[in-house]
């Protein structure tokens, strides 16, 4: 059965693992120190089928050069690959939005997201046909999806909380504007998840919550009311 685990989520670093019966695991993001990554995946790094990286920011790509050196294939957008390792590497693979590809038994469809650097989301399908949707670091997503079993979606901030922090001077306004343009609010995440809230959806993971501009408990309750399936909030050290 398809499963999703969050080892680290947020601006300090992101690392997720997707597993399914009889499949070598797939990592999503490598935004932690390599040693932390090794600890998280139980020192079985070389056993993974590969790693998908959404974009070049360090909180998503910090360990890429170590992974490729350990013969772990990493898949990311062309510009991201160049930004991470300018000279390239034979284990670093450039993929294009809209072009599906295989990593062993996994089928992956990357698609474009809206961030201040080129950024991809991923629709991951197991051999049994179960689908996982991964979306993070985007203001919104242009696409809609069907028959998703697990949705892992960014819910970075709440508009109400963010506005209040700006109004009382706690949050730098220009920083707030950048957050709005580059990250998904709980309100937009809710609208996206509403389109997925039919079987076979069986769990939702909320990712990349901002430390100051979000409320994990409220977000979880709000989304659970909409999707009617268990909702997990990913965080550092959390194995949802």
């Amino acid at each position, binding site marked *: 059965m398809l499963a999703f685990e969050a080892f680290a989520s947020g601006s300090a670093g992101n690392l997720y693992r997707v597993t399914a019966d009889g499949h070598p695991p797939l990592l999503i993001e490598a935004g932690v120190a390599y040693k932390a990554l090794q600890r998280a995946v139980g020192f079985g790094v070389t056993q993974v089928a590969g790693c998908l990286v959404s974009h070049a920011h360090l909180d998503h790509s910090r360990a890429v050069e170590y992974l490729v050196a350990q013969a772990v294939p990493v898949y990311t957008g062309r510009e991201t690959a160049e930004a991470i390792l300018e000279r390239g*590497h034979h284990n670093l693979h450039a993929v294009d939005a809209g072009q599906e590809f295989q990593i062993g038994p996994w089928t992956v469809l990357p698609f474009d997201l809206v961030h201040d650097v080129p950024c991809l989301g991923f629709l991951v399908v197991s051999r049994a046909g179960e689908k996982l949707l991964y979306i993070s670091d985007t203001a919104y997503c242009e696409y*809609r999806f069907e028959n998703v079993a697990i949705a892992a979606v960014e819910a970075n901030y709440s508009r109400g909380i963010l506005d209040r922090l700006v109004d009382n001077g706690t949050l730098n306004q220009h920083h707030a504007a950048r957050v709005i343009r580059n990250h998904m609010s709980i309100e*937009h995440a809710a609208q996206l998840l509403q389109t997925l809230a039919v079987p076979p959806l069986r769990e939702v993971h909320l990712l990349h919550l901002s430390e100051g501009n979000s409320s994990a408990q409220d977000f979880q309750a709000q989304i659970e009311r909409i999707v009617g399936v268990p909702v997990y909030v990913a965080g550092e050290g959390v194995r949802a």
Partner: protein
Amino acid sequence: MSGDVTKSNGTPGQALAKPKATLSERFLADVERQFMAEMGRGVQFTALEQRLVQHMYLSVDQALKAAEEKRTKGWTEEKLAAAADDPRAFTWHHVDRQKLALDTVHRVSLGLDALIPNHIWPIAYFNSAKGLYDIDLRVGYIGRDYVTRRFALEEPLSIAYELVYSTDTFKALPRSSSREVEGYEFEITSPFDRGDIVGGFGYITYDDPRKNRLVLVTQRDFKRSQAASKSDFWAKNDVEMHLKTVYHRVVGKMTLDPAKVNVEVLASVLEDDRDAVDVAHVEVEVAHRNVANRQLVDVQPPTADVESAGEATEPESLFAEATPGF
């Protein structure tokens, strides 16, 4: 032959090509057009305003070049050759010039000079909805001080801004029944090793000393500013960031005179931070309403045959010589 023009080399009958406007001239024209739209037709720039516009151009140009240099640092010559065509390149062609012209008009009309340190900070942000860079002409703390003094309801004689360190002695002397003028006592007891910053204050003096005002800045104010800013910026510019907080807190206490300045413009310049958030909300909301969650994309798992035959698209390997160090 009336109407004929001759090229400088004397070849008759060929029209003299109109020289292409430089980027600087085009910027000035943009701003003039915006200036007339704002102020009414027939209004001309004064010589000072024209100079301030030129200074703004130079400052933005420098900021773009610095940002592009940072973006392309370490790139190969081949990659550099194609860098200018990249839509994310920090060039004038990728700047929202209309927004920049409007913001420049507002700042120039207040007398802000982009070449004076800490008057204006041009910062480029890529606006994904427009596909262009927005240049934020952020007003620095010296610029805020200048504008607030100039357009204050009552122009102060002077404003003192000070940081207080752990070895200094400071005593606030508020107005009371026995003290008509608000004041303070401040002594630096160890000038070359003053210890840690513990607070700050500003003292605004007026013709009528009874109006003098002491503004205290506490550690809580510093912490709030630090929390709202990039922490590494504070780490690298500790004293300046503390002093900047003092400036912000002190000038924020002064009342502006609507008769001296278009208060709406002033608010848009000094408080445009709030606008930046609203604009970002609106942009994202509009884009979200128009395009979000619309286009269906899907993918099916491969059949066993396809999987074993390896027929699925293979991603391109970015092969290069082995990464050094591995």
